[in-house]
C-alpha cells in the first residue's frame, strides 16, 4: 500500500511540514504562487511521462518549450496571438513527429535522436532570433498576460486551469481508454504488444507528438504570461521533469507509472522549493535536497528489487528440508 501511494504520502508529508514550519507559507497568495510556478512544468511533464511509459526518452522537451515560446511571441506582431499560438503548438507537434519517426521508423535510439534534436533546436532558436530575447510591452500583450495570471478562484488562475484541465484529461485518457492502456503495453513489452496487434510504431510516434504538443503548450503559455521569451526559457525544465517523473513512480523501463503521479511529484517538488525560499536558504540547499530525494527514491526501488531478486526462485520448504536433512 505504501508502495503504490508513495508519492501521495510524500507530498502530504512535505506539504504539512512546510505548512507548519515555513513562515508565510500557508496563505492564499503563496499557494497561488506555487500553483502558477508549477503550471508550465506540470503540463510538459504529461507528454514526457507518456513517452517514458512507452519506454523511450524525450530529451528535447526543454528546447521545444523555448522554441514554441519564441515562435508564439515572435509571430504575434504579424498574426496576433490567435495565429501565432496555434502555429507554435503545431511546430511542437511537428518536432515531436520528427522525433517519433526517427525513433520508430529509422529505429535510432530515442536518447540519441532527442539529444541531437535538442542540439539542433538550440542552434535554430539562436539563429531564428538573432540572439535576442523577445519582449512584448504593448498594452494588448500585457492584457493577455494579466488575464492569464489573474486569480479567478482561490489558488486557480486561467493558466493553472488549463494545466489542470489537460492533466485530468490525460490521466483519464491513459487509465480509462483502451488507447491509453495500449501505451503501457507498448512500453511494458513491445514485442508482445506487437504480436497482440497493437501498432507499436504508431503509438510511439503518437507519444512523441503528444510530448511535443504539451511542451509547446507549456512553453507558449509561460511566454505569454511573462510577456517575454528568453533563449534559455526551458533549459532547467528537462532535468526537473525527469526527476519529478521518476520520483512520481514512472520507471525508465516503461510500462508503469502515471500522469497524475508525475503531477503530484511536481507539486511536491514545487512546495519543497517554495518552502526552502521562504526559509531564506540558498540554492545549494535546494540542489542538495533535490539530489537526496531523487537518490533515496531510486535507491528505495532498487533495494526493493534487490531484495526481491534474492528470494525469487527459492523454495523455502525445500531449503528447510535440505538443512534439517544434513543437520546444518
Amino acid at each position, binding site marked *: 500500500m505504501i508502495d503504490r501511494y508513495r508519492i501521495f504520502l510524500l507530498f502530504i508529508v512535505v506539504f504539512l511540514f512546510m505548512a507548519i514550519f515555513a513562515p508565510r507559507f500557508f496563505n492564499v497568495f503563496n499557494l497561488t504562487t506555487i500553483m502558477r510556478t508549477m503550471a508550465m512544468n506540470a503540463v510538459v511533464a504529461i507528454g514526457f511521462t507518456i513517452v517514458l511509459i512507452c519506454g523511450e526518452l524525450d530529451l528535447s522537451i526543454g528546447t521545444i518549450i523555448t522554441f514554441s515560446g519564441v515562435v508564439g511571441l515572435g509571430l504575434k506582431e504579424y498574426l496576433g496571438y490567435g495565429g501565432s499560438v496555434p502555429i507554435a503548438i503545431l511546430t511542437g507537434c511537428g518536432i515531436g513527429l520528427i522525433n517519433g519517426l*526517427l525513433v520508430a521508423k*529509422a*529505429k*535510432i*535510439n530515442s*536518447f*540519441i*535522436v532527442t*539529444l*541531437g*534534436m*535538442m*542540439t*539542433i*533546436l*538550440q*542552434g*535554430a*532558436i*539562436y*539563429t531564428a532570433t538573432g*540572439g535576442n530575447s523577445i519582449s512584448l510591452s504593448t498594452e494588448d500583450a500585457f492584457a493577455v498576460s494579466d488575464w492569464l495570471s489573474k486569480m479567478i478562484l482561490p489558488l486557480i488562475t486561467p493558466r493553472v486551469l488549463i494545466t489542470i484541465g489537460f492533466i485530468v484529461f490525460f490521466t483519464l485518457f491513459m487509465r480509462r481508454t483502451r488507447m491509453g492502456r495500449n501505451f503501457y503495453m507498448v512500453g511494458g513489452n513491445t514485442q508482445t504488444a506487437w504480436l497482440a496487434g497493437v501498432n507499436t510504431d504508431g503509438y510511439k510516434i503518437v507519444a512523441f507528438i503528444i510530448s511535443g504538443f504539451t511542451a509547446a503548450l507549456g512553453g507558449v503559455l509561460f511566454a505569454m504570461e511573462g510577456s517575454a521569451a528568453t533563449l534559455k526559457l526551458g533549459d532547467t525544465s528537462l*532535468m526537473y521533469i*525527469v*526527476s519529478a517523473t*521518476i520520483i512520481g513512480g514512472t*520507471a*525508465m523501463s516503461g510500462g508503469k507509472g502515471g500522469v497524475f503521479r508525475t503531477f503530484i511529484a511536481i507539486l511536491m517538488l514545487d512546495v519543497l522549493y517554495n518552502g526552502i525560499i521562504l526559509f531564506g536558504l*540558498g*540554492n*545549494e*540547499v535546494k*540542489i*542538495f*535536497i*533535490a*539530489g*537526496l530525494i*531523487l*537518490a533515496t527514491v*531510486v*535507491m528505495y*526501488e*532498487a*533495494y526493493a*528489487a*534487490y531484495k526481491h531478486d534474492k528470494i525469487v526462485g527459492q523454495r523455502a520448504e525445500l531449503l528447510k528440508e535440505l538443512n534439517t536433512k544434513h543437520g546444518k
Partner: protein
Amino acid sequence: MMQTVQKESTQIETRLRTQSTFNRIFSTLGVYGVAVLFLLLGIILQISGVINNFLTAQNMLNIIDAVSLLGIVAMGMAFVTYSGHYADLSVPTTMALTGIVCVEMLKYGFFPAVIISFIVGLLVGGINAVAIGKFKANPIIWTLAVNYVSMGVIRLVWVNKQIYPDLKASSVKASVLFDNIYRFRFFDKIALPMVFLIILVIVCHFILQRTKFGVQLKLTGSARNVAKFSGVNVERVISIAFLLCAATATLGGLTVTSLSKVGAWYNGAGYDFKAVTAVVIGGMTLAGGRGSIIGVLGGVLIIGLMNNIMTLLGIGTFSQDMIRGAIFILVVGLNAKSLRSQGRDDA
C-alpha cells in the same frame, strides 16, 4: 544426388552477402570512415580556396588540443556505456569536485593534493559502483542524483565561493606544477593533456580488448543475466567500470581546473552530454557490449574536425549547433543501420 545438394547449398544466399557496398564500407571502417570523409571535405575546401591552412601541422595539432580534455573524459565514459549503463551523469560535478579539492589541498603540496583528489574522485565512483553495480539502481537517474548532491556539497563546503591555486598553494613550485597540468608542453608542441589522452587510449584499449576484464565487460554489457549465469562477477565488473569513469573524470577535472586557474563549482559543466556524444559517435551503442576505444577516439576526433572546419568556414556558433546535432543523428543512425543490415542487434 550429392552434387545436386552441393549445388543447392552454394546457391543459398546468406544475409551477409546481401549487404550493400556502402554498408560494407561503413561497417569495416567504422567511425574512421566518417573521419576520413571530413578530412577529405576539409582538403577539398582548402584546394578550392574556400578555407586556408587546414592541412597544416599546426591546425591538426590545434584540433587534437581542442579535444584532448573531451577525449580524456570520454575514455572513462566509454567503459560505462560499454557496460550497458548508458552514461555516468555525475561526471561534471566529479570534475568540479576533484578540481576544487585539489586546489584546496595545494596547501599541503602538489603531489599530496593530486592524490587526495583522486581518492575523492574514486569515492564518488565507488558510490556509483555500489548503487548501480550491486543494487542495480537506474544508472541515469542515480548518477543524476549524485550530480546534484555533489554540487550541493561543493557549494555548501566552499560557501558559494571560488578558490585560486596560486593563493592556496604551499609554495610557488606547487602552484606552478598545478598550472602546468594543462600548460606543459613537450618540445613546445605536444601538450600534457594530449599525452594523457594517448596514454589513456593505449591503456584503455588494452584493458578492453585484451584482458579478461574487458571480455567480461563485453558480456555484461550485452546480456547481464547471461554473464551472471556464466560465472562472471557482474557486480565487480560494473563497479570497476564506474571507478574507471570516475578516475578519468578526476584527471579531466584536474586538467580543466588547471586551465581555468580557479577551483569552482561550475568547472566541467556540460561534459556529461559531450562525452556521451563522442562515445556514441565513436560506435559504441547505448545498449552496451559493442564498440572499441579506438572508435571512441575516432568519435572525439570527428567532433574536433567538425568544429574546426565549421569555424574556418566562418559559420556562426549557433548554426554550428544545428549542423552538429544533425550530423550526430546521421552518424549514429548510419551506424545502427549498418549493424542491422549485418543482421546484428542494434541499440
